[in-house]
């Protein structure tokens, strides 16, 4: 359940990052000091890096749980 939520957050954060880089200045505002952009951008950055770290951690945990064959 947590892994699935993390995967969804990961995909959403990627979409958000792309939108903030290319869509925001065209569709919303070009103000470099926009407070809303600041909040959304930092939230997206934290969500992207955090969910990426979780995805990686889940993979490592799954591998660690696998039974080892041989020596």
């Amino acid at each position: 359940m947590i892994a699935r939520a993390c995967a969804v957050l990961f995909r959403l954060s990627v979409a958000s990052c792309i939108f903030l880089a290319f869509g925001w200045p065209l569709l919303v505002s070009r103000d470099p000091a926009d407070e809303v952009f600041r909040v959304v951008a930092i939230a997206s950055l934290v969500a992207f890096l955090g969910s990426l770290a979780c995805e990686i951690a889940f993979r490592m945990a799954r591998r660690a749980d696998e039974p080892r064959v041989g020596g």
Partner: protein
Amino acid sequence: MQGPSHLVISWFYAEASSLEQARDRRIVAWAGLAPDIDVVAYIAALVYYRLDKDLAFENVWRVVHHRYTHGLAFVVLTGVVAYWLAGARGRRGSVRVAALAMLASGIHNFLDVAAGGPTWPIYPLWPLSDAAWHASWSWTIGEWPNIVVLVACLAATLAYGKVMGRSPMECFGDRADGWIVRILQQGSDAHGGATDPAAARALQRRRIVIWTALVLATIAILAPLGFNPFQ
């Protein structure tokens, strides 16, 4: 954000997207670093101005950096090149690799808006428009958030290599990755799993080489940025 951080994040992005082939992960990882290819212009300028960093910076780097390679046009170009490089995967696989490469390149742009410094805008619509896009609050490349990300990337590289048997070192080839993974995994035993004392000593030497290279690489990245943790 520093180049190594872009490369490692893009490799982990490819890994988290379940790309099975090492070559595909490599394509996506390098696509995530590709926008910084304009550093070649700075190196050429250094040669042209006979290593005068100020002239090279003022006349070339300040003008060129981010302008031509940090925008949608370059993202599309990255996708085309990735599709061509992934050609052996079959049409469906190549499209997926190209799409992930474009996303990695796009993420690079966002990371530079948020963590590239307020004086280095990106140009989303170049060559159609010279409109720049930056955030006034963006933290510069030597500030602590970027350093934390860089150190986390290096730590994740080592941890992932040890547990999973592959790491972002894959970007530099399977042999490089195999070499570092072998050192990391054997290092979990007291003598690196080597029963022969000579082999154990060789392993220990290789481990020292890796840690020294890691420390030197970190210093080489941080020193030009004026990062001083003791200030």
